[in-house]
């Protein structure tokens, strides 16, 4: 059996796939496993011994070709890449990227017999979301949404594997490389990642200096190893503490593999939302993640034991005093007195427990109820109840129309009414955030309707409305129409 995993996102996403790949190979030792990533991030896969063949997509080369070739040869280069992959005749293609680009590529390289998981395309070009885990991703994941399932866990759900502790491992060969290149690290140090993929994840030199100086005052024997890319050299040089001998600036001097050794031998890692957080998870090295609203830390935060997330809206709103207090408490094994999230001791659906926050988790509990069959959360907000009631009334209207089409009273599906209902649902989504998980589920299920026969499309749409009404019945009860539907079924 030959399987291709596609991960065309960033460096950190590739690291987050590691445990899933290890688990998949552990469960399927005879599978020939191929992996496709961007050329720029191939370094993140070199340590994955489970991968039998690594394929690369060079965005730079493809874009260069598109910009510089004649119109007749526009698709030549991509065609060659597609053919190379298609010739492999994969039994299974698992797209863990969740992007439009990857969905087109997945469809192009799949054969008729290929089992596809993750985003692909229907024969008419519409997005095809074949599995429920990817549908959860489409509907509920991302910044500004309410999901709390970690992305590594979701990747494992797409691939249909369970994760064990042993799946978080780093090969000795990678650690040895770093050990050879950096044999003289300080005895007792914190690894500090000052970089990040975007500016909205970066603290200033002043903020870092304040934090590190405070930590230094409380921990005189600690050193600090600054990590970052070449472009962060200036930022690193501007960071100062009272005793500069305790500061080792390696920004721009390390290769990706070196980071494993440096982080492994540190006391802990302090990092913004970056790929180093995921390296710490693979090493099970304690991490303090300085997270911002530009990501959803529930999905991409650290997973190593005793790791913490200190959340702020943005670097501009960063509460340096609270961060200093938290880091000093963590280093002295004392309870953290400021608001934070901490990795739970036992593996569970939510990787973190929130401490000091007024946790409004109605929407998250709603997601668990819709997708995982958990109990529906108690509703104690009249406005939300009214929104659910309106949503139920709209759903009843749509179902009534669909029933009339089914019984032959309308010749065709009354698209105008259905379309008006959907516009009103959209308005409710904007006005009442608490109902969004249900609406996002509904919208996703409608997108999942394929290019089937008219009857099948009709039946599936009818089912989706009926399922929506069943979900809403939990809060607003059933309507006459709905009872009829249940009886009919």
């Amino acid at each position, binding site marked *: 059996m030959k399987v291709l995993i596609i991960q065309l996102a960033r460096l950190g996403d590739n690291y987050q796939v590691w445990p899933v790949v290890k688990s998949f190979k552990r469960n399927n030792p005879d599978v020939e496993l191929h992996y496709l990533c961007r050329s720029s991030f191939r370094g993140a896969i070199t340590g994955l011994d489970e991968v039998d063949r690594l394929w690369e997509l060079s965005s730079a080369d493809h874009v260069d070709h*598109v910009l510089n070739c004649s119109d007749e040869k526009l698709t030549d280069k991509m065609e060659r890449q597609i053919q190379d992959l298609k010739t492999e005749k994969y039994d299974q293609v698992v797209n863990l990227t969740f992007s439009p680009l990857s969905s087109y590529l997945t469809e192009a390289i799949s054969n008729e017999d290929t089992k596809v998981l993750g985003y692909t395309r229907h024969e008419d070009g519409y997005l095809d979301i074949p599995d429920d885990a990817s549908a959860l991703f489409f509907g509920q994941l991302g910044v500004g949404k309410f999901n709390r399932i970690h992305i590594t866990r979701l990747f494992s759900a797409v691939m249909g594997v369970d994760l064990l502790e042993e799946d978080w491992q780093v090969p000795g060969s990678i650690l040895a490389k770093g050990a050879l290149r950096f044999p003289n690290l300080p005895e007792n140090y914190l690894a500090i990642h000052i970089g990040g993929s975007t500016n909205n994840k970066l603290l200033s030199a002043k903020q870092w200096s304040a934090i590190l100086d405070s930590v230094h005052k409380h921990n005189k024997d600690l050193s600090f190893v600054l990590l970052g890319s070449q472009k962060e050299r200036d930022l690193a040089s501007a960071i100062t503490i009272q005793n500069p001998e305790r500061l080792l600036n390696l920004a721009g001097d390390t290769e990706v593999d070196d980071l494993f050794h440096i982080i492994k031998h540190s006391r802990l890692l302090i990092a913004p939302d970056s790929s180093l957080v995921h390296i710490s998870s693979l090493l099970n090295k304690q991490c303090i993640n300085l997270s911002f609203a530009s990501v959803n830390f529930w999905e991409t935060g650290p997973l190593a034991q005793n790791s913490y997330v200190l959340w702020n809206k943005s670097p501009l709103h960063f509460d340096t005093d609270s961060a200093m207090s938290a880091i000093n408490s963590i280093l002295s094994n004392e309870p953290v007195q400021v608001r934070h999230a901490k990795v739970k001791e036992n593996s569970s659906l939510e990787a973190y427990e929130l401490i000091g926050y007024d946790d409004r988790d109605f929407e998250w509990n709603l997601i668990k109820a819709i997708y995982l069959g958990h109990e529906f959360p108690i509703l104690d907000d009249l406005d939300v109840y009214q929104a659910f009631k309106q949503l139920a009334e709209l759903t009843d209207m749509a179902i009534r129309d669909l029933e009339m089409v089914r019984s032959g009273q309308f010749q065709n599906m009354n698209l105008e009414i259905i379309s008006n209902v959907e516009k009103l649902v959209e308005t409710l989504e904007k006005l009442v955030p608490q109902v969004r998980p249900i609406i996002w589920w509904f919208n996703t299920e409608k997108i999942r309707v394929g290019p089937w026969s008219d009857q099948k499309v009709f039946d599936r749409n009818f089912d989706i409305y009926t399922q929506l009404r069943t979900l809403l019945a939990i809060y607003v009860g059933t309507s006459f129409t709905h009872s009829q539907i249940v009886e009919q079924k």
Partner: protein
Amino acid sequence: MSKNQFSEQELREKLAKLEKLSKKILESNGYTKEANKILLLQELIKEQLRNESTHYTTSKAR
């Protein structure tokens, strides 16, 4: 890859051309292998313009 390696103007012009081309193919022949490749390239260019927002995706409901 950073979008700065290519001029934004160049990328936008190419994207417009690809969009026109894919529309033409879709209208005349439907979603073919050629349309798939053009749409793929279209997405590749779009990624450069929005700095690889990898979690972005859209689709119309039927």
